[in-house]
């Protein structure tokens, strides 16, 4: 059946190409196939309902990812993830980055599986920012819009998240990181 009007057609033409990326992100957030599928479907429903409030010319992709992330954060898994790994405000402020070359090499030479395992164990606040930056290749401003935080926080979380990843792959287990069972 045909969409009722042009606005729905426009929504579809903008949103459907993002389906795989949104699903990938949802799956990394929730670690679960059916939960990720529900998240994506709910995101599309909410986005379509609010499409009239979406300002043309602004970033549609960031808007969709923000809806997905907010939906996830209010889900049961999302609430648990938020409770178990609170962001350290002092860590937020410390944006300085230093590079330990051996650890950096550990990431570059790690197998795909090892990287995926480390990424899935990364606390949510860092996992999401690394995914948006490195996998979705979003600009800092776009990520800031998805997460509703200042660009400075995006940069410090990225630095911290990448550092944690490097440490994990170099065989260290940074404090506060627990092993996650490889759920579906």
């Amino acid at each position, binding site marked *: *059946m*045909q*969409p*009722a*009007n042009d606005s*729905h*057609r426009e*929504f*579809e033409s903008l*949103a*459907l190409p993002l*389906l*795989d990326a*949104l*699903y*990938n992100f949802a*799956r*990394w957030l929730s670690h679960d196939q059916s939960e*990720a*599928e529900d998240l*994506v*479907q709910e995101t*599309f*429903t909410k986005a*379509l*309902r609010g499409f009239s409030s979406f300002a043309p010319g602004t970033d549609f992709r960031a808007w969709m990812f923000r809806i997905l992330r907010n939906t996830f954060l209010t889900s049961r898994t999302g609430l648990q993830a938020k409770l178990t790994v609170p962001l350290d405000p002092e860590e937020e402020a410390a944006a*300085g*980055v*230093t*590079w330990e*070359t051996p650890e*950096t*090499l550990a*990431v*570059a030479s*790690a197998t*795909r599986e090892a*990287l*995926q395992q480390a*990424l899935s164990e990364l606390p949510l606040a860092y996992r999401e920012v*690394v*995914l948006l*930056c*490195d*996998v979705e*290749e979003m*600009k*800092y401003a776009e990520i800031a819009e998805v997460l509703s935080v200042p660009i400075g926080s995006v*940069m410090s979380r*990225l*630095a911290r998240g*990448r550092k944690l*990843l*490097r440490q994990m792959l170099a065989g260290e287990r940074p404090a506060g990181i627990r092993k996650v069972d490889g759920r579906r």
Partner: protein
Amino acid sequence: MSCREWHDRLQSYVDAALPPQEMEAFRAHAAHCPDCGSAALSLMETKGALRRAGRRYEASSDLRARVVATTHQAATDEGTAKARSAITLFWPRWAITAAAVLLLAAGLFFLANRSQHPSSLAEFADLHVATLASANPVEVVSTDRHTVKPWFQGRIPFTFDLPELQGSPFTLVGGRVAYFHQEPGAQLIFGYQKHMISVFIFRETPQLGIAPASFSDRGTSFNLQTWTQDGLRYVLVSDVNAAKLQDLAVLLQHHA
């Protein structure tokens, strides 16, 4: 700028987030500074490795179909709601009441006469046309009946069998869930040369209100075939000629 200062900007350089002139300045610096150059290269490799590892999951065709269906459903619902609010805005209450009474009378007349009327069949022709006009005519795309049939499991409240088409001039294009009078059913799309044929399968209920006999309708430019078998109502709609439609009907009847 010193190496120390560049180190603080390394991440932004790798993420291409520095202003253009600083991006250029770093490239010039790295060309002469092996430390900064290798640090940047290593971070870029890290970024690339993460990108490859992070692109891990793809939406299933099932999810894609569900999302498309939800979007279409919402579009239809909204269209109806808008039409309703437009009526309330522009028409005085008495006019709406009068219109409702007229509609009710017309509806009763229709109900009383529909057993002799092919109106319901014309609605199937509408569904057929709307489907072909859609950007996504089928939700499950497959020429294999063993793929199409299981796809309907859990989506419609009955099951049906599909014929072997090898050796026949017909091909299976795919299927979708169709709704008729609030009842979910299967809509299968078959191809015959360049023509498309919709085969609707619904549970036979009194609400369906279709004349029980099989016939072709010359009132619309479409040919229609319909029959009931094992409690299921089959309706074939297409612009192919009646004889060809009959051939497909026979195939379906013998395998259903």
